[in-house]
């Protein structure tokens, strides 16, 4: 089948969205951008492929009349098993490379390094094979999970003769190799193993229908008719120049597609803030971005979190407990830390100060919005900071104070806005190539 892909290569995460010819979403993928943008783009796209095939599976099951709870449960199990197969493949690769490294010139003199590594991997593998209550997450989380499990085991097996640092140095070296290796994590390459596990104990007639549906989906050729890249690192995307669109344009169109009434978009990401005006077709008519000053960006919150010794995701919930917002004048990151400490020594409450800081960030965004042409109805808020409830509260309040009543759209999937817009551009580009006007 013919598909269209948009890839948004951000400074921290890379996103992919795959659409069918009608512009309907087939699949999405997300991964760390790493230092290797090409690989990140490939991984995100591969994930989108996997998801797309699940979407096709839904369609195939529906066509076969399998729409009940059993089908939903089957699909869930299938995804779970596929993730496990993928992760075990990665873990196997990690083990092989680790053992190779252990006998190499650098570490060969450590007598029982190989044996201890074997032990560590045995423990991890056994653990990963166990059924888990919480779902198995996507590719991104392989590194985190492997790192935490490996270091926990390494602590146990390390001793005076073979130090923890040596074990970890092996891991640190090979995890990068594994991340940069092209391991087959595709649906079609792994689904048969996963399927076999899922079908155990399934009623025979259902067994046959499920198997037929899955295998037909696995064999369906998916052709990417057109791909469009965007994002901060887009200059390095493996696409020709005409397949690259500005992130501003993609963001505007993506927001328009998510919420067709969108007239104004605010995106507050880690590195920058954008205020965008779009017309009724999702075409950008005006935009403004923050300047060198990071005051209004997510980075500022990160700075504050460090200053308060908290996780950045904890700031919003704490600020929500505030009953009396402290007025923070300086949104300058340089001054913010000092002002924060000053206010804490004055005995002001952390939640009240945080509420003030969130308001200060949104004030900066309000200025950028005013600069781009104001806030029209409807108003769509995207980016990482849109997940922060205290920021959203401050935004709602300031919008009301300054512009009156506005419909404010926030999507839980707003991280895909840029990739969605890029994919839409791919659909349009594909269509206009077929019917040149």
């Amino acid at each position, binding site marked *: 089948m013919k598909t269209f892909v948009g890839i948004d290569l951000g400074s921290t995460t890379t996103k992919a969205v795959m659409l069918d010819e009608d512009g309907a979403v087939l699949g999405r993928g997300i991964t760390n951008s790493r230092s290797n943008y090409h690989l990140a783009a490939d991984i995100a796209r591969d994930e989108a492929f996997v998801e797309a095939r699940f979407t096709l599976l839904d369609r195939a099951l529906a066509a076969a009349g399998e729409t009940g709870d059993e089908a939903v449960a089957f699909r869930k199990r299938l995804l779970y098993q596929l993730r496990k197969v993928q992760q075990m493949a990665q873990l196997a690769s990690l083990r092989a490379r680790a053992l190779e490294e252990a006998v190499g010139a650098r570490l060969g003199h450590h007598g029982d390094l190989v044996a201890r590594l074997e032990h560590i991997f045995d423990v991890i593998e056994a653990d990963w094979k166990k059924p888990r209550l919480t779902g198995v997450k996507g590719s991104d989380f392989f590194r985190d999970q492997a790192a935490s499990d490996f270091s926990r085991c390494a602590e146990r097996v390390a001793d005076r003769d073979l130090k923890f640092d040596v074990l970890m140095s092996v891991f640190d070296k090979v995890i990068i190799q594994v991340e940069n290796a092209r391991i087959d994590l595709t649906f079609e390459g792994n689904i048969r193993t996963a399927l076999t596990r899922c079908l155990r104990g399934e009623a025979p007639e259902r067994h046959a229908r499920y198997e037929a549906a899955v295998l037909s989906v696995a064999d369906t050729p998916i052709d990417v008719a057109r791909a469009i890249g965007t994002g901060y690192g887009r200059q390095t995307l493996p696409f020709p120049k005409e397949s690259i669109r500005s992130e501003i344009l993609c963001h505007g169109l993506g927001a328009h597609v998510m919420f067709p009434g969108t007239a104004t978009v605010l995106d507050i990401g880690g590195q920058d803030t954008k205020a965008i005006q779009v017309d009724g077709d999702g075409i950008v008519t005006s935009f403004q971005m923050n300047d060198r*000053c990071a005051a209004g960006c997510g980075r500022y919150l990160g700075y504050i979190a460090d200053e308060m010794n908290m996780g950045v995701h904890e700031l919003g919930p704490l600020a929500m407990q505030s009953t009396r917002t402290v007025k*923070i004048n*300086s949104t300058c990151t340089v001054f913010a830390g000092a*002002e924060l400490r*000053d*206010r804490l020594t004055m005995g002001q409450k952390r939640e009240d100060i945080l509420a003030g800081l969130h308001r200060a960030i949104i*004030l900066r965004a*309000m*200025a*950028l919005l005013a600069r781009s042409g104001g806030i029209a109805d409807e108003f769509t808020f995207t980016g990482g900071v849109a997940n922060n409830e205290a920021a959203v509260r401050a935004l709602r309040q300031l919008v009301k104070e300054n512009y009156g009543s506005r419909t404010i759209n926030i999507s839980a999937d707003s991280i895909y806005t840029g990739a969605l817009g890029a994919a839409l551009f791919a659909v349009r580009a594909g269509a206009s190539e077929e019917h040149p006007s």
Partner: protein
Amino acid sequence: MTNEAESGGAAPSAVDEVVARAEALYHDVELSSVQRWRDAHGGAKAVGYMPIYVPRELIHAAGMLPVGLMGGRGQVEIIRGDAWFQSYICQIPRSTIELALTGRYALLDGFLFPSICDVIRNLSGMWKVLFPEKYVRYLDVPQNYDPDVGGRFFGSELRSLYADLCALSGEAPSDERLRASIALYNDNRRSIGRLMELRATEPWSVPAWEVYLALYAGNLLPVEEHTALVDAYIAAARAASRPRRDNARVVLSGAFCEQPPLELIRTLELAGCYVVADDMALGRRWPEGDIEVTGDPIAAIAEAFITRSPATAARYEPHGDRGAPLVQLVRKSHAEGVVLAAPSFCDPALLEQPILQDSLDKERLPWTAFKYSENLGQFQVIREQAGTFADSIKLWSEA
């Protein structure tokens, strides 16, 4: 935060009452005192002007209330102002636009933007575009101090300004009224001069933040009322017989346009510095000395500017070097050191700071420097810096 120690926590004293009145004016973002004045004067007009070198006599003689506009004093939340200015531009134009766009300046009929810097200059043009219904004028002050050249030019500028102001108010131009206005402002300058002398001789009697509030009140009050307020403050402060502290005597320099927050001024004193001279609210106290009340009044104002306007970074220094006026001020006020406080991104003040520092070094006068903005919210760093500075001066003088 207040001077409870000094006032002993008793019933409000006379000095507290005067200061409270001035402080209420300082916090009056809505300019309600101006509205009251207008109502009381049959809807007479009011004209706003930016911080320095505007001859208020002309506005007064045209039958209008001169209103000094000195930014937001950290009391307004800036949204619209930030929309118009890049991050590398100072605060005062932001808050000034914010106040105007939120209707707080709607009761002003005219706006004067004196020559201070490129930002304030361009603000005059922005005002023309944003508020086409208002009278807006950029007032270029001469940078040539030859009475026959710069003086003549300033005279012609002032004459045309006065004609405009009279057209705005509907008053007929009158030399006699101008002279009367000059006389009233001369009274006002004399009272302020007495206050400045008092602070230089007995800074413990008149804390810097109170002096500042008393001066600030002159932005809003009719001139006679302001003169009375200053006189009342002097009398009350003298009577309060406040204790003398072992503070260092400093000159505060660089704050001629965007004003430091009141809390910053208080912080300096709490940290051990008596501010014995400064350039804050300078537009309320220029020229130095009286303006001639006989002869051509406009020529007299121009002459006063040419010969006796206080030096700031906004004015070219034709004679000697740029640092000389500051050194003179230090000597005249018997200060022991200088606090160079310039607003962030203030081109004039920051550009000349190396000159001032060099001049002070040559005179072996200690100095310390920091930047502020009118909406600064934290003072701990400045408190420590000023405290260390005051201590070092005291050690220096003991050595």
